[in-house]
Structures are given as structure tokens and as C-alpha cells.
């Protein structure tokens, strides 16, 4: 039982990071029908931006204030990069065939990845210990402070995003644009600013995911975005791409699958078994767990 609960805690921690990153994929896909392949590399870039904020702006201070500044500054910087990315790589191709936009996304991914390498170097960088290594032993299950922070902050952000999309006027505009951009435009919605908004939100959430990766695992490399991007992309598909609660659920499920399979079957085969399970889910529900069964537009 201890092991089960411990694996549950491990799975939820990594799952909530996947979920934060998956939200960026799913929101962009929901409105633009585009897989933003550069998102994973944006996540990697944010860990490096966070590191630079820590060393250059905060003078390597590890107080609570410093952590808050690092989060806010990194999220703002990455939001700007996200908007810039949309302007440069996606907006000119808005009316082009979908394949061109996908190629542009792959190109943007390479540009960002190599940009990180040129700016911060090819070596693994070590993220500072922003949160002290504090642990609690709850009857055999050990939970660390950083795990609690990751879980709590992710949940707050996800609930906040859900309320924003469902309860506010801007949220309604986002939902309307995802259903039909032309009709939304006719209703007086500025679709361009909706798209800018989803890039701001998606990139900031991704940035927080990237900072969590840095804080939790400590070692960050310029090419790590690919791995996290792939996992989060799959999480988004499992939940039903374009569906926001679906991305959250998909991320959590993926994290749990991985932890339980590594724990109970074999760590050697964790990835293979995880993906076999995911394929089974998609065979039963091709549009993902929460995805709508919509007829393809012809």
C-alpha cells in the first residue's frame, strides 16, 4: 500500500507538469487547428530564462520573494516570445494549407532549440535549489515540499484557467473562435487578439511547467524540450485535443501510467507499456477521453 501511494504521489507530480505543458498544445489546436511543435522548446527555454533571472536579476537569492519574481518575470518573457512566435511563424501562414503551418512549427522548434544552445551553451546547466529540500514522512509515504508546491500551484492554475474560459467574456470569445472563426468575427470578436491571448496563456503555463522541471529535476539541457513536448502532446491527444479539461486529465493520466508501470511492471519497459496503453485508449475513443465526436469539416 505504501508503494502504491508513493507511486501515486510521484505520478501526480510529473503528471501535473505534463498537464501544464499540454494545455499550451490543446489551446492552440482548439483555436487554430495547428500543432504548435515549438511549444516543447518554449518550455525548455523558460527553464533557461528562469536560470538567468535567478543569476542576473535576483543576484542568486533564494528567498520566497525571489522565487515569485522568477516565476512572474519568466512567465512574462515567455508570453512575449509566444506572441512573437505567433506573429512571425504562424500568422503569415494562417490561410496557407495546414502542412505549411506544420513545417513552420517544426522550423520554429529548431530555431528555438538552437537559440537556447547558442545563448546558454550546449552543456547541461544546473538549476538552483530554489525550494529547500524538506520532506515529510506520512506513514511510509514521503512527500517533499517541492512536490506539494508543484501540485498545488498546478491545480490553482488549471482551475483558474477553467473558470476563465467558462465564466468570462474573454473566455467565451476563445470558445467561440474555436468553434468557428468566421462566425466569431461576424459576432464582433477580434480573432487576432484571441489568438494572441491563447499564446500568452499557453506560453506562460508552459513557462511555469519549465520552471517546475528545473526546480524538480535540477539539470536542464537545451534539447530537453523535445521529450517533454512529446509527452505533453500525447497527453493532450489522450484527453481529446482542443479540450482544456481533457489536457489536464491526459497529463495526470500519463504521469500516473508511467509511475505505476515503472513501479509494478518494469522500469525498463515503462515507456513502451505506457504507449501501448495509450494506443488502446485511442482505439476505444479515437477523439480522446473528453474529445467531442465531431464530424470532420469538409
Amino acid at each position: 500500500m505504501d508503494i502504491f501511494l508513493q507511486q501515486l504521489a510521484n505520478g501526480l507530480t510529473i503528471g501535473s507538469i505534463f498537464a501544464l505543458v499540454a494545455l499550451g498544445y490543446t489551446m492552440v489546436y482548439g483555436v487554430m487547428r495547428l500543432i504548435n511543435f515549438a511549444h516543447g522548446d518554449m518550455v525548455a527555454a523558460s527553464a533557461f530564462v528562469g536560470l538567468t533571472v535567478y543569476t542576473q536579476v535576483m543576484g542568486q537569492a533564494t528567498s520566497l520573494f525571489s522565487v515569485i519574481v522568477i516565476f512572474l518575470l519568466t512567465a512574462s518573457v515567455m508570453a512575449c516570445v509566444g506572441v512573437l512566435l505567433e506573429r512571425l511563424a504562424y500568422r503569415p501562414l494562417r490561410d496557407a494549407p495546414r502542412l505549411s503551418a506544420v513545417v513552420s512549427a517544426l522550423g520554429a522548434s529548431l530555431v528555438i532549440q538552437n537559440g537556447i544552445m547558442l545563448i546558454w551553451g550546449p552543456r547541461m546547466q544546473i538549476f538552483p535549489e530554489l525550494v529547500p529540500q524538506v520532506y515529510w514522512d506520512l506513514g511510509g509515504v514521503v512527500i517533499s515540499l517541492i512536490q506539494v508546491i508543484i501540485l498545488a500551484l498546478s491545480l490553482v492554475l488549471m482551475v483558474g484557467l477553467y473558470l476563465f474560459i467558462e465564466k468570462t467574456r474573454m473566455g467565451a470569445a476563445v470558445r467561440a473562435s474555436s468553434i468557428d472563426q468566421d462566425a466569431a468575427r461576424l459576432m464582433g470578436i477580434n480573432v487576432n487578439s484571441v489568438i494572441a491571448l491563447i499564446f500568452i496563456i499557453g506560453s506562460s503555463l508552459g513557462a511555469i511547467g519549465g520552471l517546475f522541471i528545473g526546480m524538480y529535476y535540477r539539470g536542464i539541457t537545451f534539447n530537453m524540450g523535445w521529450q517533454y513536448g512529446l509527452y505533453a502532446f500525447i497527453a493532450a491527444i489522450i484527453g481529446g485535443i482542443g479540450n482544456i479539461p481533457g489536457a489536464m486529465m491526459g497529463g495526470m493520466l500519463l504521469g500516473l501510467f508511467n509511475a505505476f508501470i515503472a513501479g509494478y511492471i518494469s522500469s525498463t519497459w515503462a515507456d513502451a507499456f505506457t504507449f501501448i496503453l495509450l494506443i488502446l485508449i485511442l482505439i476505444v475513443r479515437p477523439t480522446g477521453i473528453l474529445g467531442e465526436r465531431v464530424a470532420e469539416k469538409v
Partner: protein
Amino acid sequence: MKKMLKSLFVVCVAVVMTSTLASAETLKVGVQAPITGSYANEGQGIDNGTRLLASQINAAGGVMGRQIEVITCDDQGTAMASAICARELVNRGVKMVIGSYTSTAAEAAQKIYYDAGVLQTSDGTADNLTEKGYWTFLRNSFPNSAEAEFAADYMVNVKKYKRIVVLSDFSTYADGLANATEAAIKKHGGNVVSRDKIKADSQNFTPVLTNIKSKNPDVIFFAGYYSDGGQLRSQQKALGLNADFIGGDANDNPDFVKLAGSAAQGAYIINVPSPDVLPYPIAKSFISDYQTRYGEMPPSIWGLMNIDGMRAIIHAMEQNNSFDTRQAADYLHNMEEPLPGITGPIAFEKDGNRKGGAYVVKKIQADGSYSHEYVQ
């Protein structure tokens, strides 16, 4: 028009002649190392060291009058990029190749260098590197089997651990070292409660560690690289798994301590002695030159081992008074008097293994420095 063609021809001939003349005057030395990727720290150490040695030799007049030209190729520590590098370096006409850092990359390139008759000296410690009968391969470190024997003896007979976990990744080096250590522990009568594997670079090791925790071990022996080792140590502590941690030689890198953070304290690392405690005069002068030129210590002993391999090959060429690689290999395989090296006297067995081997156990202190716990 005819005149133009004629002059073009003359220019071409001149260019070809000067380029062949220029290339005849240099001794090309290839560096195949992970300049980018997870092991970039080590790869750059090998490249920096080779270039430093080359510039020192060049300043002293070169090798038998030829200046050394260093050509670097980044293999990212992977087998695929390694094979591409090997072909490129062979095509560019190198006589010897320094590297690579990982056994996986060294192994993938071996056959290509063997077919081309290019000497390769690598710090790769996997035993199978020298089991193929390639006369071109010269190991400048000591094989896994020697380290496995030392580690097993230390764990079973010195520390008297009752429950041992052996952990590795899937690479040639790590898997080989872990298997050899497991066998050696059993030979010494020790009890291996679990033999697990992790995926290098996957960062999330808590599922495996949680499983290991349920087996209640006294010690985790990790054969693998520092980039994973540091994270393993930190996640081990975060799970409240209070077993000792012993890392194999590839954990001996400053990044291990940085990655593990405050959890690094108390971890053990088994390796040959660190660069800063090498007692040889040639080591002290080379390391101080390295610091002057690059503003930092060599990242680990591995780069220096590779430099010793390069020094041995050049020494052999000078003794033979020939750039022939076959003759140089023959000389090195039959050396009677070892060459004084940065990492100790260097000489080779017939199969290309470096002779000797002396290990130490280092314990990481609160400030990240090492204390030498146990010396062979």
C-alpha cells in the same frame, strides 16, 4: 576565352599544389567527443586538453618537424553521430583519433578506424572494446572488470553491506560495469537484492527508486553517468530512502554535486584519483597550463587519460621515426618501459588495454569536496 581558361587552369593547379603541400606538412589529429548533449562537459574537456597539448608540441617544433592540426567532430555521445564522425575524420586524413568519451560512441567508431588503419585512443571502460582484436584501439583508462572487482570487494568485505542494489542505464559502459559488479559481488558472497535499469536522461527516476525502497537495501551501486547520478541521489533522498549511494567512475564530475545539491553529501564515488591529487610533476605542470589557458580545472580525469593516450601514440611515432600507424601500435603493444604520464605510467597490453589500475573511494563532503575514504 582560351586565355581565360588557361589562367583558370594555372590557378587551379596552383591551389591544388599548395593545398597538398600544406597538408603534407601537418600531422592531423582527430578529436571525437561529445561537444554538445548531456556529456558536453567531458567532451569539451577532451577537446580543450587535446588542443592544449597540440599547441605545446607545436610550439616546441612539432612531431618530427610536422605541426599538429586538430580536427574536432561532435559525436554527442551517441552511436549514430559517432559513426558519422568516424567517417568524416577518416576522410579528412587523420592519423589518430582521441576519444570518444562514452564507450557506446567509441564502440560504434572502432570498426571504421580499424578498416582505415587509424589509431584510436579512448577512455571508454567497457570490457568488450578490447575484445575484438582491433590493433588500432588503445584504451587509455582501465577496464570495467578491474573497477567491478574493486567495487565488489569494497562493498562486501570492507563496508559489509548485507543488501545491495545494482543500478545502471542501458549504455555499453554502464550495463557492462553493472553486470561485472553484480557477478563480482556474488563471487565475494554478497547479496544483490535487485538489479534495475534506468533510461539515461529521462530525469524521472522516482518510480524505480520507490521500487528499490521496498527492497530495503543498505546501498545502491549506480553504474552510469553523472548527469543521471546526481538526479538519482537527489531523488533518492527526497523519497526518504536512506541507503548509501556508491557511484561508478563516470559519476566523478563536478556536475554530480551540483545536481544532487544538498543531497550530495555522504555519497561515495569510485574512481581513479582526481586530477588535483595526481602526484606526478608532468600532471601538475599540464593542469596548471590548462587552468591558465581555459580558466578552469579539467572537468575530470577522463580528459587527461585521453591526453595520455595521445602522448603515448606521438611518443611511439617519434621512437619509430615514422608516422606509420601499424608500427606505432606494434611499439605500444610491446613497450617495456612505461611512458611517464599525467595519470600515471602508461603502457599497453597486447590487446590494447592500459596496464595497471588503482582505484579510490571518495566521499562527498558538505561543501561538495571529496575526502578519500579508501585506497586500493
